[in-house]
């Protein structure tokens, strides 16, 4: 009896899965076709072929009758002599009725005039202006230029939106059928509906992105974009379908639904924040990792497995003497972090110990003064120090002159440049350690010191045997945190030395930034760098997590 029932259910659901998969594939195919055939691409394709024909015709005949060219594609064709002065002598749209929009329209039209005029600088060219395509042909012999101005193509998004019907019908079908075939209290009903909706939303957003992309590109690229888009869509459909089937085969769905229903309330509370973090922190992180397998050159992406990692870790960029190389930068980063943390601790702790003295006057005033470096936005701090290190006028060189030394050109030498960064960051970072130490000092019970005094311990012994051991566990989290902050201190390096000279004072994170934004957009390299930094920090976090939990266990 029991067996029979469950057997029946499985048959029902597997039929249903087949049906859903079928509908999904159908949807995807229809949808990708719609994207391809939407009017934007048709129009642009026509404009392209048409203009090619025009150019050919003109090459042969030299001129052309205006009326024969006026198709529905081209709103207007302007023929003008190449003027000597650059005053853009015609106004494109002369019929202006509404006086309110007049001024704005005039401005836009004069800009269009300029675009039309400029397009004639080349022998023949295709250019874009606010949704219009301007195809220009200039004839050297007759000193004439023809400009074909296409109708405004701004309904692209709408035509993309039209495809939503395929999606909606699919969603309705699947949900309807699931409600007919799946028994009421089966949880598959809910999860299937959710999956279908998610799947379709994904496609919808995806298509919007593609259309948006297409709008910003030149005609040449759009056709290739749609072509690659078709294959992309197809691959995505296959992956999603496979996932979908795998989901049911492994019965993961039942576990998932059970947990989802059991912990519905907390999950709902977390959903908005979790979604935000997932989309804007984790999704970029993972897409960054994927990007690190690509080589990017002049905007062209090609998948090259681990070649970026190879270049960085073993190949051309691994040379330790090369200031742009990985190991050099890593070495600088480690030294930078170590020296900084040492001074932060030394200065921060000393000041805290002095301020912690009983009966010290103006304690509050002092502690406010010492917190100020932490309170000032650190990009401002960095720029202030940069000005103080100015060779001719900076106050530090002035002080050196006052002491009888030469002026130093701080940023032309690796060592002094590093020192400049270091001074800035020490000034910036010691207040954090001071505040943390002050907090920790107050938690040390006074009776320990009383007992020590009774035993005749000196101040130094008190410090060594009471203060320091008691501070250690309390300060460990702050040190771990401080190391991460310093390791990633982008602003100071980027704004004070700017990596000068020759990016020899760059740390890993600024180097990664430079690969992306200052060296021809090598996004792949940069992403690989970022991934390596991620791994380093992740390992660091893992190790320190163990250390600090061990420390707690010992207490």
């Amino acid at each position: 009896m029991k067996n029979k029932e469950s057997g029946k259910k499985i048959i029902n659901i597997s039929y249903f899965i087949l049906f859903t998969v079928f509908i999904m594939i159908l949807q995807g195919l229809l949808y990708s076709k719609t994207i391809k055939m939407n009017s934007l691409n048709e129009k642009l394709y026509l404009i392209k072929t048409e203009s090619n024909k025009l150019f050919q015709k003109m090459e042969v005949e030299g001129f052309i009758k205006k009326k024969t060219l006026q198709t529905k594609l081209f709103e207007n064709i302007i023929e003008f002599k190449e003027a000597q002065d650059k005053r853009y002598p015609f106004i494109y749209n002369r019929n202006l009725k509404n006086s309110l929009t007049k001024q704005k329209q005039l401005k836009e039209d004069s800009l269009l005039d300029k675009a039309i005029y400029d397009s004639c600088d080349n022998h023949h060219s295709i250019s874009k202006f606010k949704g219009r395509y301007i195809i220009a042909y200039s004839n050297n012999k007759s000193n004439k230029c023809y400009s074909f101005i296409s109708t405004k193509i701004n309904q692209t998004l709408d035509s993309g939106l039209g495809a939503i019907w395929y999606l909606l019908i699919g969603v309705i079908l699947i949900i309807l059928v699931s409600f007919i075939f799946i028994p009421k209290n089966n949880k598959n009903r809910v999860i299937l509906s959710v999956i279908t909706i998610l799947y379709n939303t994904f496609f919808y957003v995806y298509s919007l992105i593609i259309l948006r992309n297409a709008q910003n590109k030149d005609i040449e690229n759009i056709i290739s974009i749609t072509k690659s888009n078709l294959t992309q869509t197809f691959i995505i459909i296959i992956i999603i379908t496979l996932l979908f089937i795998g989901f049911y085969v492994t019965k993961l769905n039942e576990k998932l639904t059970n947990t989802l229903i059991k912990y519905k309330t907390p999950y709902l509370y977390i959903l908005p924040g979790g979604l935000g973090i997932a989309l804007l922190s984790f999704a970029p992180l993972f897409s960054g990792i994927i990007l690190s397998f690509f080589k990017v050159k002049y905007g062209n992406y090609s998948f090259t497995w681990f070649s970026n990692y190879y270049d960085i870790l073993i190949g051309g960029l691994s040379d330790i003497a090369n200031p742009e190389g990985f190991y050099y930068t890593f070495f600088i980063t480690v030294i930078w972090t170590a020296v900084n943390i040492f001074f932060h601790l030394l200065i921060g702790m000393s000041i805290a110990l002095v301020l912690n003295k009983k009966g010290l006057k103006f304690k509050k005033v002092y502690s406010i003064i010492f917190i100020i470096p932490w309170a000032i936005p650190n990009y401002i701090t960095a720029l202030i120090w940069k000005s103080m290190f100015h060779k001719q006028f900076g106050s530090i060189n002035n002080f050196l002159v006052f002491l009888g030394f030469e002026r130093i050109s701080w940023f032309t030498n690796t060592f002094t440049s590093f020192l400049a960064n270091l001074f800035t960051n020490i000034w910036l970072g010691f207040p954090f350690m001071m505040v943390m130490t002050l907090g920790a000092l107050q938690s040390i019970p006074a009776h320990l010191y009383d007992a020590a005094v009774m035993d005749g311990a000196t101040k130094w012994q008190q410090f060594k045997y009471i203060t320091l051991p008691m501070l250690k566990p309390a300060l460990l989290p702050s040190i771990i945190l401080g190391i991460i902050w310093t390791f990633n201190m982008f602003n100071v390096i980027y704004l004070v030395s700017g990596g000068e000279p020759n990016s020899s004072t760059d740390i890993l994170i600024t180097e990664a930034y430079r690969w992306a934004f200052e060296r021809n957009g090598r996004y792949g390299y940069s992403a690989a760098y970022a991934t390596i930094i991620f791994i380093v920090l992740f390992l660091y976090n893992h190790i320190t997590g163990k250390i600090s939990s061990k420390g707690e266990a010992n207490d």
Partner: protein
Amino acid sequence: MTKKHYRRYIPFKTILTHLTLIFLSVITLYPVLWVFKMAFSPTQGFSTSLKGDYTLNNFITLFTITDSESNLLMIRQFWNSIFVSVISAFIGLVLATSAAYAFSRFEFKGKKSGMSAMLITQMFPGVLVIIPLYLILDNIGLLNSLWGLILVYSTTTVPFSIFMLKGYFDTIPKEIEEAAVMDGASQFTIFIKIILPLSRPALAITGLFSFMTAWNEFILAATFMGQEKYYTVPVMLQSFVGAFNTQWGLFAAGSIIVSLPVVILFLYVQKHLVGGLTAGGIKG
């Protein structure tokens, strides 16, 4: 007791301590004085001594800079900064509050891994995900748009805010909620009507922190904003002292105006932040 009695015998050690502290304070405050000097000096360069003329010219010039369409640039950028910071702080706070409540009050599957996931996002700075974010914003057309910045900023402080607020929610006794449940209140009513009003100070501090983070952010804004009219103040200040431009006077004047409110805010909320930093940063 009597102050006079003390004053007669100030020990040499105390004087030495104060002298050291004053010396250190001068070093600490020197860069600040240097900025004030630059801001009030009549030239765009630096002057060598503290003597000399003092004018308000830099401040006046700063607020009358115009772009090619004769809009007041700096005022617009201040508005950009305020707009972006306030809205993203608000969104971030809303997102964080409900999540923190769940982490504080419920037991559920994935609670631990959720917390450690938050920790991971805390550890990795924005620069690491800057390229993917750049490409994403480019794709959805939010590059060069304040809403793009808001989108990015509003989630960056969420993990930290969750840790702060969870810590606070944990201190609210559960008995209050139990009493409300007896009276027939739903979970959501409890959250809105009891928990939120009780945690007003924590919400204010967390919100201020998110605001300050957005207000002080430099590199994401510098990367995503290509046109001057969309710049936030940090980007503009940096452009004053960029490679082709050295208007130190304007930079100094601007940085005083930008820093003053956040420095005061920071001094005010600093004590509360410290607890959250270590608790959120490490233990989780």
